[in-house]
């Protein structure tokens, strides 16, 4: 597997709270993808961070990448109920394929 220890499989928070999901990986990658999967749908890319970026923001999302520790995180600020989904991180083999982690189920309660 490309992945080390998976992070929390499930998180439950209240609306308005901040939340961070973490991933670690075993093999070298220059890109970490974060996908979101809503119930009954296929995954969709929400943010992509490259090894030279360390941090990337998109709206209320913030991704970090630490290549020295081979880890990445995704933070959501002021989570809303519509952020409820499964979030996956994925590494890239630089050969047009990616490797998904097992995902974190995030539930945001009103």
């Amino acid at each position, binding site marked *: 597997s490309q992945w080390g220890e998976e992070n929390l499989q499930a998180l439950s928070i209240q609306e308005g709270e901040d939340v961070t999901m973490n991933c670690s990986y075993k093999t070298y990658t220059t890109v970490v993808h974060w996908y979101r999967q809503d119930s009954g749908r296929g995954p969709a890319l929400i943010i992509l961070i490259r090894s030279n970026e360390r941090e990337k923001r998109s709206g209320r999302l913030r991704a970090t990448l630490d290549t020295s520790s081979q880890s990445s995180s995704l933070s959501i600020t002021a989570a809303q109920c519509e952020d409820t989904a499964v979030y996956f991180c994925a590494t*890239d083999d630089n050969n047009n394929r990616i490797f998904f982690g097992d995902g974190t189920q995030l539930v945001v309660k009103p």
Partner: protein
Amino acid sequence: EAAVTQSPRNKVTVTGGNVTLSCRQTNSHNYMYWYRQDTGHGLRLIHYSYGAGNLQIGDVPDGYKATRTTQEDFFLLLELASPSQTSLYFCASGQSSYEQYFGPGTRLTVL
């Protein structure tokens, strides 16, 4: 917005049955992928292709064949279906791995 469609959306078959899952993308993407997703797991790559007539083996190819007949169409074939192949199957396309666009999925049950 990239469009990827899959058919059928649900399929039930018996052990030993023959199943074909279809995927079509209308965005002229070079790459197409077949994944399976099982409860508690992420997506695992079965096969992928970078163009018509091309096929690359993924991480969990045993028991599956695939064929890319055109730029748009990618098929996954289960010639002797087994209960272990009961799963949710996703097709995706992309110009590269930097963004893959996923279809809505096909839920396959093998009895």
